[in-house]
């Protein structure tokens, strides 16, 4: 990775910014997550060299930061969101709403694969490479998520 922060920013920040904007409805929050992702990328610059590996790292890290933030969101926000939203939780996607609604109900690993698959459009093979796990693990996580969403639909 270039050791020049300006070059690194120009090359990678727009990718981070767009990725975060897809995940987060609040513009300021998306900007915060993008900033944190870039800060971490800069801190890891000695370890990350290959642009392909950096792209995967950006997807993995920004997704995890976004999930972490949503899991800390106040419970009231989630309830208020639900009050005005009666869409099918398994329906295809309002990504930001999915994050907001499911962050407290779904394990982070399942949310990760859901965001990478449904929001970013990654194939199972791509998700496996980004997360450093097997495709089988990805399939298992997606199956567990579907089961969980089915239960939520039934209880709704």
């Amino acid at each position, binding site marked *: 990775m270039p050791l*020049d*922060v*300006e070059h690194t*920013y*120009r*090359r990678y*920040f*727009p*990718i981070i*910014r*767009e*990725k975060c904007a*897809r995940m987060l409805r609040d513009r300021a929050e998306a900007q915060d997550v993008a*900033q*944190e992702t*870039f*800060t*971490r990328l*800069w*801190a*890891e610059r000695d370890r990350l060299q290959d*642009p*392909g590996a*950096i*792209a*995967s790292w*950006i*997807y993995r890290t920004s997704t995890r*930061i976004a999930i*972490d*933030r949503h899991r*800390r969101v106040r419970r009231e926000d989630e309830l208020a969101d639900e009050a005005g939203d009666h869409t099918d939780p398994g329906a295809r996607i309002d990504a930001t709403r999915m994050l907001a609604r499911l962050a407290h109900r779904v394990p982070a690993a399942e949310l990760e694969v859901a965001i990478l698959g449904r929001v*970013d*459009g*990654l*194939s199972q093979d*791509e998700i496996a490479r*980004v997360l450093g796990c097997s495709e089988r693990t990805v399939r298992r996580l997606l199956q567990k998520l579907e089961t969980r969403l089915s239960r939520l639909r039934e209880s709704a």
Partner: protein
Amino acid sequence: MTEHPSFLQLDRATLGIEVASETRAHLASCDHCRRHLERVAEPEAPPAWARDLARPRRRPWRIWGGLALASAIAVFVVVLTRGRGAPEYTTVKSAGPSFTLHIKRGDTVFAWDAATRVQPDDQLRLEVAATGFRRIRVLAANDVPLYDAPIGDGVTLLPAAWKVDVQPGDETLTIVLSDGPPTWRTTLKLSKTTEEHPR
């Protein structure tokens, strides 16, 4: 038209990484995907916070034992302890943890210099090098928990930030690092002003 490639594929193409021939063919005919490529290819000048990353790290509280920190922040309280109930293991790991407290005031972010007074609405955020410890807890006054999570090697910018309230009185942040005994613990006292003035 073929199905859209993933955003990762598009971003890899932006970075000049070889993409599949189907992806290239798709990009030649899909306005939607081309617009994404144009957005991520738009030059954007780095803002101040990004340029600041390249400056030499200020580590006013680099700790190689407790005394360095104590002298650096003078009036602040530093406690090194294993934690309640087992003081015989009081220690700091040899390479020593370190941290930087970032203060976000409006659009400006700066590292606390142990003298600047915090103000209401400032956002405080810790960056920690845990040096082998695996768990971090951050506590407010009276040990009210603010953050508790595993922490990895290297320097970690904690995902949590805390806003300074308008209540009078100083702010206290206590950082506790542990992986089982021994525990590393330090308490910062940040004097606060509610008057508006430059730092």
